[in-house]
């Protein structure tokens, strides 16, 4: 532990943490550019870094983006990311009452504390969880990956068939190249496709390009009358979550729990936590009118879910959302093999990263405070100045990795496809999951068939597999059950 902490206090890692937090907060605050897009943008710059430096830097962006989304949610009523949607409900009414500094302080306090709790829980439970994950055989892994793809199709998209098609499309794209058995698939004689599509170019294309194309449609991030932000009020707001300890703890635990579910993500966590808060709290009736507790519920769940989704990513190699999907891509670029062995194969790095998460949650307070104070000016940057600059950076970054201009063409191609898919409500995260996990899914299915062929009854001897099947059935049938229950209630009342 002491060793892991000592490593973290080196100047380069501390600097990467601060820079990462600022980039994350800024990117999170830009409507349309989410944590995943920001990580994808910075991905090419991590290739010259060691795995620890890369992870610390990218995880800092992840942590910063969790709070950044709340800044625009409070100040202009537009969530910087979907995960900040519930922050708008009470944060923006507070700003309209002239309490914008206090609302920002509450969001920052709840976000940092939520992130801290999520990081501590990750620190405590990652290794036991990973030990359980180590007992996972191919059947359990196939079921978990399927669960991830199904959850997204059912929860994120507006249409289940489109969500499933997006996942299948991702798997098709992810398995281009040489098959595990040695045959070439969908290469059309192009040697470039031997190893499939390059991760960096596809991830940047899928996440960053559509965000930037969309961003060019708005002139400024924030417009309208200037808002006065007093540091004293922000600092006072920081301590408000302490007044609602139960709301905070409940929301943070909900965040971690939902974050653990493969592919559920922070957006689901914060909406669920906010709605539970509204039902449970005796101030619930005031939610939506500028109630401080509402901001605490939304922000603490949003940030704590990072710990949960990071646990699933590290323990099983399955991302919890778009940001962790890109993080997983970064790990693959560093030569790591996703899966239950990942934590034990890179124990020392993971140990430092876990402590780094705790440190990032603490450092989020000063960096968030500085950003909040200057948010008024920062958010008045012309997006039409920012977009060409960010495009130049991503072209440079993607080219820099392998020095091949074809990678940039692949990025543009994937970017345009992603832009069109997004417009027609195909969940991009499902395409990414299919792309990243397709090869792993295929390898595990082959292993399962080789192991159990003709002896499938032996799967019944594995309680985890049975549990996962039950969970899978519940996940698949729950939405239609809830819909039927709601319509039955409506018919009755």
């Amino acid at each position: 532990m002491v060793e892991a902490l000592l490593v973290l206090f080196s100047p380069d890692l501390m600097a990467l943490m601060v820079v990462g937090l600022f980039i994350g907060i800024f990117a999170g605050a830009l409507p349309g550019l989410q944590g995943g897009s920001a990580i994808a943008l910075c991905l090419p710059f991590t290739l010259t870094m060691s795995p620890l430096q890369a992870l610390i830097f990218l995880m800092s962006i992840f942590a910063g983006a969790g709070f950044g989304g709340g800044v625009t949610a409070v100040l202009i009523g537009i969530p910087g990311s979907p995960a900040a949607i519930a922050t708008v409900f009470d944060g923006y009414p507070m700003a309209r009452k002239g309490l914008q500094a206090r609302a920002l302080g509450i969001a920052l306090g709840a976000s940092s504390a939520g992130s801290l709790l999520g990081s501590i829980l990750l620190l405590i439970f990652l290794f036991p969880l990973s030990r359980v994950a180590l007992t996972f055989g191919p059947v359990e892994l196939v079921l978990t990956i399927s669960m991830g793809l199904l959850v997204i199709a059912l929860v994120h998209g507006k249409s289940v068939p489109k969500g499933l098609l997006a996942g299948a499309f991702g798997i098709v794209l992810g398995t281009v190249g040489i098959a595990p058995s040695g045959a070439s698939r969908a290469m059309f004689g192009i040697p470039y496709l031997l190893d499939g599509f390059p991760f960096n170019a596809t991830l940047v294309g899928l996440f960053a390009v559509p965000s930037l194309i969309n961003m060019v449609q708005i002139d400024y991030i924030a417009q309208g009358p200037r808002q006065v932000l007093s540091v004293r009020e922000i600092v006072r707001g920081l301590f408000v979550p302490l007044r609602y300890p139960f709301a905070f703890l409940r929301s943070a635990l909900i965040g971690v729990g939902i974050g653990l579910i493969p592919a559920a993500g922070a957006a689901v966590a914060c909406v669920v936590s906010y709605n539970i808060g509204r039902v449970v709290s005796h101030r619930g009736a005031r939610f939506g009118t500028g109630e401080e507790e509402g901001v605490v519920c939304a922000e603490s769940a949003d940030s704590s879910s990072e710990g949960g989704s990071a646990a699933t990513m590290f323990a099983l190699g399955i991302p919890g959302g778009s940001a962790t999907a890109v993080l997983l891509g970064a790990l693959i670029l560093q030569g790591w093999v996703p899966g239950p062995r990942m934590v034990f194969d890179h124990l020392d790095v993971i140990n430092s990263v876990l402590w780094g998460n705790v440190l990032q949650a603490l450092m989020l307070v000063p960096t968030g405070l500085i950003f909040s104070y200057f948010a008024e000016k920062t958010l008045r940057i012309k997006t039409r100045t920012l977009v060409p600059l960010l495009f130049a950076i991503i072209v440079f970054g993607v080219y820099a990795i392998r020095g091949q201009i074809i990678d940039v063409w692949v990025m543009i191609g994937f970017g345009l496809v992603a832009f069109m898919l997004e417009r027609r409500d195909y969940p991009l995260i499902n395409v990414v999951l299919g792309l990243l996990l397709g090869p792993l899914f295929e390898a595990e299915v082959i292993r399962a068939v080789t192991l159990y062929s003709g002896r499938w009854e032996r799967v019944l001897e594995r309680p985890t597999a049975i549990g996962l099947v039950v969970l899978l059935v519940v996940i698949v049938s729950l939405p239609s059950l809830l819909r039927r229950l709601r319509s039955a209630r409506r018919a009755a009342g």
Partner: protein
Amino acid sequence: MSEKQGPSRGDLIGEAVVLGLIALVVGAYAWDVRSIPQKALNLMVMRPVLILAGILIVVVLGRYIAWPLVKGRVEAAAGPAEGGGALRRAAPMVLVVGMLVLYTAVFTALPFVVTTTLFMAITLVGLGNRSPLVVGSISLATAVGLYVMGERVLGVVLP
């Protein structure tokens, strides 16, 4: 009671383009792998995935394109004023994508600083930045900054 609005013709065309693209990729994949030996493990996963994708393509086609057409629930095309507004909104996006494609096309043909400065300057002006000082300084600073970072920090050989 307001009647539920159907999709517009533009929506249907959009759906058809995206679905066509997915179908093209899935179809091309299926076409390429048809000659792979079937008995081995080559297509154990991909054959069901391709079949599932095919079924889902038909489902999406039926639900989002054919059904509104059959039911006659397609809204009329946007009027000229609305259409003009949509074009105005799309113009900056088209400009950015066009410039990105052009930038990539000439990326290796000209020195990095020249292409990047030109890309930045033209895109900034095209997006409405009028001050020559701002456009010039941002463009040059970005190009030189990235060049120095690439050559000195990351050790990348740039054109």
